[in-house]
């Protein structure tokens, strides 16, 4: 079936490219091909499915297929009226990307893997560079493709002269980390995701970057004796990534940038999960291992659904408002209620709040950390568990406020700009797809225990036994409580808006304004202002940039305050490095000075040097005829 799927995708791409003149044909075939191929692949997936299915790949394939379809349908609305004339390009590369991503999970040999991996990067690069008139987009695309290439270089090194397990792992962590977005290797995410069309960002952030973990699990972590190393490395990276990612997400003003940073955070969470898994197996803590792996794999699926929904929602917002700058939006909830509620629920889910899916995986990882605390282990494991516990808790709080900021700034209050004022609800396809993803995540919440029970990769530790029972029980409990919560909320709402007598249900009045008669949208709290206390508190890490005009004089004329946050990795590591290289290159150009005399001089000196080497330092000159 996979072959069929690839065939369909390939044909789709081909036809789309062929008929790029007529957007309707290209769009139709492209979209249909994506969906049909996904269905075929899904059939193949189901056929491969044995009980219990012991393959890791399955966990990575489902998100690809789901998000591919979701993104395809969403694109129908998203592209309408924007770059339709390039629909052929879009759909062609979309199909190739999907095919390559699916192929990566099925690659049989390192070489196949490499080729498909590069192809994936290349095709998705073409999608990122879709809006190529804009200089910023091209720059983002450049950063992305460079990151892809660097990763590929490390992978080549890993595959072809890796050597010891440790070397393989280190190279793999760097090579795949560039795709995953481990701290300091993450720079391309906040650049590429805002630049790409929303469905593409959804596909990339929800399914593609996770494939890095697939690579790590499949090709780099095969040596049982090194599990401790794997565990510690992943935990360290995960903790930094989680906290740092969320912290920087907090400071963003561009919605999709915020989401991109939250992807970095979620990848960190997964890393923590896998790290606990490995560390648990290494230190003989079965519970920790199981909870860690289970949490990580669950988070894989959940993050795919929720983040996909959020990015698609962001796409809808972009089409509705025409901007992604949160401080210029506002009041969209009244104009696009459905999109708003769905976005809010997805956001709550990703900040790990019950009754939404996001809580499940975080919960399991908390359990892993607690298992590390309760088991009499050695100090290191204990300390790490404690650190993870605290960091996860803090990050949870930060995530909540970041998403509150996003929802509040985009959907609530009064519009902060004229274009926001005449926003409108989006077309059906863009409207319903995020909702569908939300429903899927709800189903996942209900069925999580079964996913773990049956769909759990066997190699991740003991799939039977006490820990498994605990895990499943906990998941069931959480599921029940989520249901209860929804029930309670429903009851409360029904009581408040149905049972309370109509006379007391509530009338509409202006917002309480503390006596100031005509409040305007400019008095509202902006998103930046909302998170400013936190960004101030963590200024040591974030180093916010500030541009302000203080009010002066007795009758101050104009004054302004602007605060924004630049990526730490770019600002303090990569930018200096690249500058230094550019400068060095600039200096080295002096060699090509244009003076014939110097050229000849260089030649003669080299010649003499060669002779010197040959006759002084290299053996074997003696001997006559």
């Amino acid at each position, binding site marked *: 079936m996979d072959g069929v799927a690839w065939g369909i995708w390939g044909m789709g791409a081909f036809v789309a490219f062929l008929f790029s003149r007529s957007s309707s044909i290209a769009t139709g075939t492209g979209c249909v091909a994506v969906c049909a191929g996904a269905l075929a692949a899904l059939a193949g997936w189901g056929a491969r499915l044995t009980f219990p299915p012991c393959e890791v790949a399955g966990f990575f394939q489902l998100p690809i297929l789901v998000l591919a379809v979701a993104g395809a349908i969403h694109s129908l609305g998203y592209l309408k009226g924007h770059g339709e004339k390039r629909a052929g390009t879009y759909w062609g590369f979309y199909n190739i990307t999907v095919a390559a991503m699916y192929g990566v999970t099925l690659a049989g040999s390192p070489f196949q893997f490499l080729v498909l991996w590069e192809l994936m990067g290349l095709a998705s690069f073409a999608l990122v560079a879709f809006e190529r008139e804009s200089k910023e987009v091209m720059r983002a695309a450049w950063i992305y493709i460079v990151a892809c290439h660097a990763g590929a270089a490390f992978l080549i090194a890993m595959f072809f002269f890796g050597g010891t397990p440790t070397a393989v792992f280190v190279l793999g962590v760097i090579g795949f980390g560039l795709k995953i977005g481990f701290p300091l290797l993450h720079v391309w995410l906040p650049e590429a995701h805002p630049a790409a069309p929303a469905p593409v960002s959804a596909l990339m952030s929800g399914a593609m970057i996770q494939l890095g973990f697939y690579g790590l699990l499949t090709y780099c972590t095969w040596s049982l004796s090194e599990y401790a190393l794997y565990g510690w490395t992943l935990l360290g990276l995960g903790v930094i990534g989680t906290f740092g990612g969320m912290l920087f997400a907090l400071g963003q003003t561009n919605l999709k940038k915020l989401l991109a940073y939250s992807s970095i955070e979620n990848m960190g969470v997964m890393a923590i999960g896998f790290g606990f898994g490995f560390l648990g197996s290494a230190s003989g803590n079965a519970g920790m291992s199981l909870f860690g792996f289970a949490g990580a794999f669950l988070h894989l699926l959940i993050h795919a659904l929720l983040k996909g929904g959020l990015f698609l929602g962001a796409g809808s917002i972009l089409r509705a408002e025409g901007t992604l700058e949160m401080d210029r939006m*506002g009041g969209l*909830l*009244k104009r696009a209620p459905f999109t708003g*509620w769905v976005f809010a629920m997805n956001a*709550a889910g990703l900040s*790990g*709040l*019950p*009754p939404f899916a996001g*809580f499940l995986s975080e*919960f399991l990882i*908390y*359990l892993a950390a*607690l*298992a590390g*605390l*309760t088991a*009499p282990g050695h100090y290191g494991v204990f300390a790490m568990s*404690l650190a993870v*516990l*605290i960091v996860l*808790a*803090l990050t*949870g*709080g930060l995530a*909540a*406020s970041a998403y*509150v900021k996003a929802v*509040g700034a985009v959907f*609530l*209050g009064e519009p902060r700009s004229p274009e926001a004022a005449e926003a409108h609800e989006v077309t059906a396809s863009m409207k319903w797809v995020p909702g569908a993803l939300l429903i899927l995540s709800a189903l996942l919440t209900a069925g999580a225990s079964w996913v773990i029970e049956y769909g759990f990769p066997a190699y991740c530790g003991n799939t039977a036994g006490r820990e498994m029972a*605990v895990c499943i029980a*906990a998941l069931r*409990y*959480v599921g029940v*409580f989520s249901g209860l*919560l929804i029930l*309670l*909320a429903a*009851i*409360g*709402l029904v009581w*408040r808006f149905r049972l*309370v007598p109509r006379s*007391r*249900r*509530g009338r*509409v*009045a*202006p*917002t*309480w304004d*503390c006596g100031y008669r005509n409040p305007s949208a400019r008095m*509202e*709290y902006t998103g930046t202002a*909302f*998170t*400013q*206390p*936190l960004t101030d508190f963590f200024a040591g890490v974030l180093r916010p940039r500030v541009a302000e005009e203080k009010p002066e004089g007795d009758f101050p004329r104009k004054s302004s305050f602007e605060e924004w946050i630049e990526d730490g990795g770019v600002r303090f590591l990569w930018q200096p490095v690249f500058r230094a290289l550019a400068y060095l290159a600039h200096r080295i150009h002096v060699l090509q000075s244009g003076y014939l005399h110097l050229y000849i001089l260089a030649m003669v000196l080299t010649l003499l040097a060669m002779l010197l080497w040959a006759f002084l330092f290299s053996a074997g000159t003696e001997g006559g005829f």
Partner: protein
Amino acid sequence: MANPTVIWLSSFLLSLILAPLLPGIVNKVKAFFAGRRGPNLFQLYFDLAKLLRKEGVFSATAGGFLQVAPPVSLGCLLLAALLLPHGLVRSPLGFGGDAVLFFYLLGMARFITVLGALDTGSSFEGMGASREMQFSALAEGAIFGVIGFIAVFTGRAGFTMLPADGGGEWWSVHAVSLLLAAAAFFVVLMAENCRVPFDDPETHLELTMIHEAMILDYGGPDLALILYGASLKLWMYAMVLMMLVLPWSICGTWLGMGCTLGGVLLTAVVVGAVESSMARYRFLKVPRMLVGALAVALLGIFFRLVFEGGIQ
């Protein structure tokens, strides 16, 4: 020996009923320190009854979160209440890691409340929401420090102080670490329930409000739900505190239940005393207090491990 479930159930119902008493007690104590007679002990009950009979008012700006917030947040709180060890009896619905779920449910309540506040588009409520999120985010750290302490202490990840391995009499052994943890949690309690050094529930100046600022726009039944929720939240935190300080040997007895209820009411008195003996901190100082609470909790764990023999 009574049936634990009965004890749990009865004390659960009692908590639901008695919760609004706590603010009354607090105010009474403050009045006492201020040398006034102060409001009636059952004032909140009257207020609730009155508010429920009034008509609700919603901001014209609001798009829906404002209306939805009060019932949903109260739902979260009630659900969370189901997880607590009322009367020092492990909740029949409890499970491994229920503590995590408990605090995340409170988090959900806060999330929706804050969104409701932002829904009005009022700058004051935005301000209050922003502060609330900041403080709670930092409080989470301290809270999970305490949860970690419980886990270390009992060897189990849940709302119980019964050690997995039977354990021993510990007020004699672990007094220091328990006190540290309790102290940390008390700070959290004050912060999360908007008590004085962190927030001033009585203030009438919007600029200095946190929680009050968020609910400026509510009235009638909605306000009633919110006020009841606030008192219930205070009650639950007090209950957790009791779980930390009361000796486990009286668990599951009527005595234990009595002690718990008494302890909760006593907590209210202490809160009142503290409130009337301190002034509100500057907002810049609040985060430091919360980080300090986290540090204290970690210190508790450290004591438990090193001096009171956790890790061999």
